[in-house]
């Protein structure tokens, strides 16, 4: 039986893929299989109801390397007769997806925001034209690879039907790339993508100390502070892990407050899935007001503290 095979080097993301794959597998009559490589918890996949868990242990799999992991996934894909491969669309996942697609002669879509089985085909949505549009696309190839954005769905819950763990012997060549060290980016990293409330700030913020205003509001609302790219990469006022946007994270909070942000598309794509969006900007013509549920024309340095006080 052909399979829908899942892999992510991030556990949470892998269990989201498992959840997705279970639904698709049932409708497409494909067996659900997971590639548990290296330190991945094969037992945990089984506990969450994955019918076939390919456990590949090999000394070269101890940390993620695209060259080694592409070899390994190719072998698992052959063993599991994968027709559909779901990969987590993290940076590592994306570099793997392209390499794997080329090796398998598979079509590939990355950064998919949704994936559904409709009229006999898998249909994905992803940003196009730099986020101006959302393309609805499908693949026509025999093997299809979809890299799905983290937090696309809930992780698969623990299930009763335990699957089978299939040890697989992998024939791997060492990577030509030597990993020297890994430096954590942000020790106080917070879960921007999973946050229920985000207070996003941009270049309208006058000085770094004023971040306190945003932090106070975020704390009153029970959320986190996130930012536009320039605030982290140019001004370095916040760590890069807080960047929202096309090349940053995609938040989908219940409430987003965007203050001092004009709303350029590079940022907007990362926040437009917010359920309710509040914008604060001095410029009444700022684009952010066009994608906001509630807009306040005014200076964030004045409005945010008042908002914080009113909520408290």
């Amino acid at each position, binding site marked *: 039986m052909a399979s829908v095979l899942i892999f992510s080097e991030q556990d949470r993301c892998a269990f989201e893929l498992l959840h997705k794959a279970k639904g698709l597998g049932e409708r497409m009559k494909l067996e659900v299989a997971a590639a548990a490589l290296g330190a991945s918890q094969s037992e945990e996949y089984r506990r969450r109801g994955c019918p076939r868990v390919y456990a590949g242990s090999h000394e070269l799999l101890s940390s993620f390397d*695209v060259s080694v992991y592409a070899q390994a996934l190719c072998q698992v894909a052959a063993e599991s007769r994968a027709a559909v491969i779901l990969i987590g669309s*993290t*940076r590592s996942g*994306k*570099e*793997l*997806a*392209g*390499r794997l*697609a*080329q090796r398998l002669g598979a079509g590939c*879509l990355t950064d998919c925001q949704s994936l559904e089985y409709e009229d006999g085909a898998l*249909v994905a949505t992803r940003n196009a*034209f*730099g986020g*101006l*549009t*959302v393309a*609805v*696309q*499908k*693949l*026509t*190839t025999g093997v299809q690879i979809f890299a799905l954005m983290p937090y696309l769905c809930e992780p698969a819950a623990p299930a009763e039907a335990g699957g089978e763990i299939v040890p697989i012997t992998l024939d791997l060549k060492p990577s*030509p*790339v*030597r*990993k*020297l*060290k*890994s*430096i*954590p*980016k*942000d020790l106080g*990293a917070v879960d921007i993508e999973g946050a229920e*409330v985000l207070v996003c700030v941009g270049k309208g913020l006058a000085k770094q100390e004023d971040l306190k205003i945003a932090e106070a509001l975020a704390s009153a*609302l*029970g959320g986190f502070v996130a930012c536009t790219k320039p605030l982290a*990469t140019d001004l370095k006022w916040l760590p*890069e892990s807080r960047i929202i946007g096309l*090349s940053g994270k995609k938040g989908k909070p219940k*409430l987003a407050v965007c203050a001092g942000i004009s709303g350029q598309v590079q940022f907007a794509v990362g926040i*437009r899935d917010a359920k*309710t*969006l*509040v914008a604060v900007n001095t410029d*009444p013509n700022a684009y952010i007001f*066009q*994608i*906001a*549920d*509630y*807009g*306040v*024309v*005014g200076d964030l340095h004045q409005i945010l503290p*008042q*908002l914080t006080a*009113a909520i408290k």
Partner: protein
Amino acid sequence: MNIFVCMKQTYDLQQVRIRRETRQPVLENIPLTLGNIDKNALEEAVRLKEKSGGKITVLSAGPESLADTVKEALAMGADEAVLVMAPELGAIESALSAALLAKAAGQAGPFDLILLGEGSTDNYSGQVGPRLAELLGLPQITFAKSLVIEGRTLRALRSLEDCLEEAEVDLPALVTVVSEINEPRIPAVTQILKAGRKPKRVFRPEDLGIQIRGFAPEVQTQSNLAPIQNRKGILFKEGAKDVSALVKALEEEGLLRR
């Protein structure tokens, strides 16, 4: 040091507007340019050349308009362009793009390093770099935010979601860069004037043994429209005076924890 930089022609998306009635992007009369992050890759190549000499070749595939668009790269500091051009190469898929670039690389001679942006400005799929590395049998280092070359060794700092990873590889290699790596230069007028005289070698896909018809489309696009914005669009114009009204609205929606 021979450095190849792969660049993609795209619309200048800053200038693209959405037609409100149809939600379609309006692409008529939009100028063409090269990808934003591709320019970071080129800038990095120019900096490496300034430090240790060498030659920079731009590789690109696209329709006839590319011959003009690529001048921007030659003005920024590339020495030569090797282009694959055909009318059908307007919006090509990653697999074909990688195949054409691999062939163009073959024409451009020996190389030590291939640089690309981590993704294109328009599609941002991030596939071409890894696909090209696979086709050419090269080691790949993606998402580099800085890189240093000493002798035949390249060391890069990769920017991943939650960590920076230092990685090292012997040349030749393929590296994709993130936009944080540098600030691309704006070429001076004299450079722009000189760019037209720099060598350009143009190939048709057939010249390189590629039949475009042999590449069946792998991706079918059913629609490509601006997302529907289902927002309330309530604007409080009185600034601070309206904060209480905003709080009331948020409270009614159950968004404030009490």
